[in-house]
């Protein structure tokens, strides 16, 4: 017996066939509507032509639909035809959405869905919002990172970040046996500028001073505000004589700088201390100790410049024993910055 759509024009089947047809319908109903897994074809119906492949197709689609309903997209449906095709299309769409979601997770916010009705709208809105939020967060992160490493008044690096870079640079210098120098400098008579003209003018002087210094240095040099009116410069790949020459150049640049005020022009000067590390033979110190010693010597040299008339450059060698008796404050500050 063939299972087919109702045929009202034909005579009803004999009683035996009607009973068999009812059993076929009941069996197919169980596959389609029961919550329990589809049963095998009852022995009595095995002889019904076409029932077994139909039952297998329905069972296959039922299992496939169940997998889809539980989010399992790995199923394979061998059944062909339009009905199975709709299930496979849904699976295909869901798989593609899953792939698109994985792309979004990797930062590809160009992904859009246009084949899943309301879900498309929600997905696209979510991706656009993620994109907006992440762009905002990245901009914020950049802004706060910049704030964390810079001095807000001058825009130069702050002390903490200076030593982060300087430590790496001293390690690199030691590894490759390359010279490295430090200049410390301080605006002369800055307190009197503040007292005479006010702190607003003092701030202008600091900003202008920073700008002049920055203009005279190489891209690889690292300039930072040390605190108050003190500044520090790291000069990679620079030996003692070139470092002193750089300090002299900076000194001249500052001397030639006139800061315009309402009451006229203000000319400032600065004092400089220079030290460097360039002799590697016999060295047993680690990079951090070398850095501390070079900064200390530059600070002591600055102290000498201040005590011998200001507006001058003083150099102290890394291993100058006479320098040990001189006063300095840089090392203590450096430890604070590094901690």
């Amino acid at each position: 017996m063939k299972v087919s759509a109702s045929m009202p024009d034909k005579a009803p089947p004999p009683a035996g066939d009607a009973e068999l047809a009812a059993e076929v319908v009941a069996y197919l109903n169980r596959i389609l509507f029961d919550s329990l897994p589809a049963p095998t074809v009852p022995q009595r119906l095995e002889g019904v032509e076409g029932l077994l492949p139909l039952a297998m197709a329905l069972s296959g689609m039922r299992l496939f639909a169940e997998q889809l309903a539980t989010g399992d997209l790995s199923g394979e449906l061998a059944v062909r035809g339009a009905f199975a095709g709709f299930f496979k299309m849904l699976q295909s769409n869901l798989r593609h959405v899953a792939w698109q979601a994985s792309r979004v997770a990797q930062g590809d916010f160009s992904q859009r869905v246009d084949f899943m009705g309301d879900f498309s709208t929600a997905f696209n809105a979510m991706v656009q919002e993620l994109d907006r939020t992440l762009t905002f967060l990245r901009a914020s992160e950049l802004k706060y990172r910049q704030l964390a490493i810079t001095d807000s008044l001058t825009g130069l690096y702050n002390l903490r970040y200076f030593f982060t870079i300087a430590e790496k640079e001293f390690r690199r210098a030691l590894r490759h046996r390359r010279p490295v120098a430090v200049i410390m400098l301080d605006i002369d008579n800055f307190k009197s500028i503040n007292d005479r003209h006010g702190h607003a003018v003092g701030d202008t002087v600091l900003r202008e001073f920073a700008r002049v210094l920055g203009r005279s240095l190489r891209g690889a040099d690292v300039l930072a505000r040390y605190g108050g009116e003190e500044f520090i410069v790291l000069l990679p790949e620079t030996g003692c004589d070139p470092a002193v020459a750089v300090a002299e150049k900076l000194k001249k640049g500052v001397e030639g700088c006139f800061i315009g005020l309402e009451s006229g022009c203000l000319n400032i000067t600065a004092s400089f201390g220079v030290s460097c590390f360039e002799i590697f033979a016999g060295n047993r110190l680690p990079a951090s100790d070398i850095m501390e010693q070079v900064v200390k010597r530059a600070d002591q040299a600055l102290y000498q410049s201040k005590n011998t008339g200001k507006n001058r450059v003083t150099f102290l060698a890394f291993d100058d024993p006479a320098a040990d008796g001189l006063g300095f404050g840089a090392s203590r500050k450096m430890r604070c910055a590094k901690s």
Partner: protein
Amino acid sequence: MQDRRYVFSWDLIGNLDIGRPNLGPMTRLEVYRLMQYAFRDVIERHCGTVKTDTIFYESGYLAGQEFYKQFFSHIKDFAVFISTVQATLKDMGVGILRVEKADMEQKSFVITVSEDLDCSGLPELNYEVCVYDEGFLAALLDSFTGEKFVVKEVDCWCTGDRTCRFTAEVVG
């Protein structure tokens, strides 16, 4: 082979702005299918089914290579490549391409094409017909990755599915 007249180059597409100032670059899909299935009929009569499929796969491959050179050869990133291919195929009315799976390590892909130029809407035939598409997709993947892929259609409109599904596996 000597005395070839039609070694493909993009020039054979012609200058459509000059050539079709009124009709433009679009034509009815029926005309495309008329040509494709007329070719298929005649070639099959001359060469048999297997050889015809080979000819269509290789033709698709050649078309895919030239299409890649024309539109995608500058792209380095896979996601950009896929999204550009999707947009181009959609804009040109070729089909709606989607990626179901892209395993870059195993070099294994599952790609679907809905509303396909070659087959969507055809009567059910009990076998897949998008052999040209197989070659076309293989060429796109080969050209982008530099590896040799074999593309096989596993579901097709003509086998009752709503969307054509292709597996692509690297050879060797």
